[in-house]
C-alpha cells in the first residue's frame, strides 16, 4: 500500500453530494484540493527546515523570512565534521540493541505462539506492562546504579536500556507474525523429519522475514530517536545524535541554519525508512494489532 493502492473506494460514491453528476464532481475536486492543501501544510515545516539548512546564518534568522537565496552546503560541512563521535555512538546503540532485541525477542515470541508455554496471556501482559511503566519512575535508580557500577557515560549502558525498551514491542510484533504461519507447514516439516533448529532456520525464518524487518524498523526508529536516557546517562564519551542536535544551540551567535542542517541529517534515516515501509510502520506502532 505504499503508493498506488488499487482504489477500494471506487464502488462507493465519491463524496457526499447531490445525485446529479456535475455537482458531485465539483465536490470531489474541492475535496481533493483540500487534501493537497492540508498535506502541503503538514509537510511545510519539514520543507522549511530543509530550506533553512541550505542558508547562511544571517538569512536563516532574518525578519521577514528569506525565501530566495543562494543555497550553500556550509552548514552540512560543519555538521558532518563535528558529529563523528555522536553518529558512531548512535550507530552502536541503535544497531547492537536492535540485534539483541531480535535475538532475545524472536525465541520468546516463538515460545508464546508456535509451541506455547503455559499462561501465555500473563507473560504477554507482563511484557506490555513494562512499556507502560513511565521512564521517569526508574531513571533515578538506574542513574545511581550505573554510577556505582562506573558505567555512566558508557555507550553499552544505553545498549542495555534500549534493548529493554524495545524488547516488549518486538515480542508482541513477532508473536503476531508467527501466528500467521499456517500450522500445516510446521507439521509437514516435522513429518519430514526436520528438527527444531532446522525447522526454525529453513521454514520459519524465511516465512516471517518481512515481520523481522518490520520489527527491526520500529526498534531502530525508537532507539535512534531516544533522548531521555541519553541526556541523563551520558556526558562527553557516549553522547548520541539527539544530544548533538541540542549541543548545536549555543548561547552566543546565530545557529538556526546549522541546527536545521543537524536536525535534517539526524531525521533523514528514519524519514527514508518510514517512507519506504509505511505499512510496516502502522503494524509496528500498534504493536501488531493492526495490519
Amino acid at each position, binding site marked *: 500500500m505504499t503508493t498506488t493502492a488499487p482504489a477500494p473506494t471506487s464502488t462507493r460514491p465519491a463524496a457526499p453530494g447531490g445525485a446529479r453528476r456535475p455537482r458531485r464532481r465539483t465536490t470531489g475536486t474541492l475535496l481533493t484540493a483540500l487534501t493537497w492543501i492540508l498535506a502541503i501544510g503538514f509537510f511545510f515545516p519539514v520543507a522549511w527546515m530543509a530550506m533553512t539548512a541550505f542558508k547562511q546564518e544571517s538569512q536563516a534568522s532574518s525578519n521577514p523570512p528569506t525565501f530566495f537565496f543562494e543555497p550553500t552546503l556550509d552548514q552540512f560541512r560543519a555538521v558532518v565534521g563535528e558529529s563523528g563521535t555522536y553518529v558512531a555512538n548512535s550507530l552502536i546503540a541503535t544497531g547492537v540493541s536492535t540485534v539483541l532485541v531480535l535475538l532475545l525477542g524472536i525465541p520468546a515470541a516463538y515460545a508464546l505462539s508456535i509451541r506455547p508455554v503455559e499462561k501465555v496471556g500473563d507473560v504477554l501482559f507482563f511484557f506490555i506492562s513494562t512499556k507502560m511503566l513511565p521512564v521517569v519512575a526508574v531513571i533515578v535508580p538506574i542513574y545511581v546504579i550505573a554510577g556505582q557500577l562506573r558505567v555512566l557515560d558508557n555507550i553499552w549502558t544505553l545498549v542495555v536500556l534500549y534493548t529493554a525498551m524495545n524488547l516488549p514491542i518486538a515480542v508482541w510484533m513477532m508473536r503476531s507474525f508467527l501466528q500467521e504461519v499456517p500450522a500445516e507447514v510446521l507439521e509437514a516439516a516435522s513429518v519430514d523429519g526436520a528438527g527444531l533448529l532446522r525447522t526454525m532456520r529453513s521454514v520459519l525464518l524465511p516465512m516471517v522475514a518481512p515481520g523481522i524487518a518490520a520489527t527491526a524498523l520500529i526498534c531502530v526508529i525508537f532507539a535512534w530517536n531516544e*533522548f531521555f536516557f541519553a541526556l541523563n546517562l551520558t556526558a562527553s564519551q557516549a553522547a548520541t545524535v539527539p544530544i548533538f542536535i541540542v549541543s548545536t544551540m549555543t548561547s552566543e551567535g546565530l545557529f538556526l541554519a546549522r541546527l536545521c542542517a543537524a536536525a535534517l541529517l539526524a531525521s533523514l534515516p528514519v524519514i527514508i525508512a518510514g517512507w519506504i515501509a*509505511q505499512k510496516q510502520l502502522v503494524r509496528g506502532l500498534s504493536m501488531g494489532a493492526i495490519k
Partner: protein
Amino acid sequence: MTTLTTQAASARRAQELRAVRDEHTLSRAERWRRRGPLLPALLFTIAVTQIPFLVTIWYSLHSRNLLRPDSDLFVGFANYGDIVGDSTFRGAAVNSVVITLGCVLVAMVLGIVLALLLDRPFRGRGVARTLLITPFLIMPVASSVLWSMAMLNPTYGLLNWTIGLVGIDPVDWTSTYPIVAILMALVWQWTPFMMLLVLAGLQAQPKDVLEAASVDGAGPWRTFTWITMPHLRRYVELGVLLGIIYVVNTFDQIYLMTAGGPGTASANLPFYIYQRAFLGFDIGQAAAMGVVVVIATIFVAMAALRLIFRSFDVKERS
C-alpha cells in the same frame, strides 16, 4: 504445530482450551523445553525494568540527596506526605492531563478528517499520504527545536511573520502560551499516527458490505454513519489509548521548547520529576513522585491493555 486444529468458534476459547490441555498432558521436561526460548527475554526484562522500580520504592521511603550520598535516612511515607502538599506537583499533574488529552483528541479529530480525505481515490494519493506522515518521522528532538525556533520564535519565527501579514502583532508563543506551543508541536507530530491507524481501519472495511449498502440504495452519509463509524470505533479507541501511553511520557518537547517554564507553568510530571532528581538532586522526593505516577498510570494502562488484548483476540489462531 502440535496443538488443537479444530476451528473453535471463539479464538480466546481455543487458546484457553489449549492451555488447559497443555497443563494436563505436557510432561515436566516438555514444559521446561518450551520455556527455554522465553526465559532469556523474560529474565532480562525483569532485571532491567523491575529491579530499578523496586529500588525506586525503596528510595521513596528515604530522605536522600545526590550531593550528600551519606545522608540516607529512613523517613517512612514523609516523601508521599510532601507530595500531597506540593502545589507544583499538582500543577504538573494537571499539565500532564491537559497536554496528553489535548494532543490525543485534537490529533485524533484531525487524523480522522485526513484519513477520510485520503480514502478517496485521486491522482497522487500516495504522494499526499507520504507528505502527511512525514512529521511523525522527524526525530522528536529535531521537531521540538524546529517548532520553538524556526516556527515560533518571536523575532524571526515563521508563524509570527504569517500572522503579521494579516495585521496581528508578534506573539512570544513559548513564554506567553507555553502549553499551546507544546501542543502545536505534539499535535503536528501525532496527527499522522492517528491518520495511519484510522486509514488502516477504513481500508479494512469489508467491501461486500459496502457494495450491499450501495445496492440497497444507501447514500454516502447513511453508509458512513451506519457502517463506517461503527467499524472505525475499534481503531479510534486503539489510537486514543496508544496515543495516551506514548504522549503521557512526553519529555523532549517540554525540555527543549519551554524547559517547563515560565516558572513551572508548562512542566508535566516527567519533566518535574526530572527537575527534582537531576537539578534538585532530591532522590527521595523524585522517587516518591515516580511511584505515584506509576500508580496513576496503572489505571489507564489496565483499560489500554484490555482493549489491546481484545484487538489481538480477533485474529487469534484457532
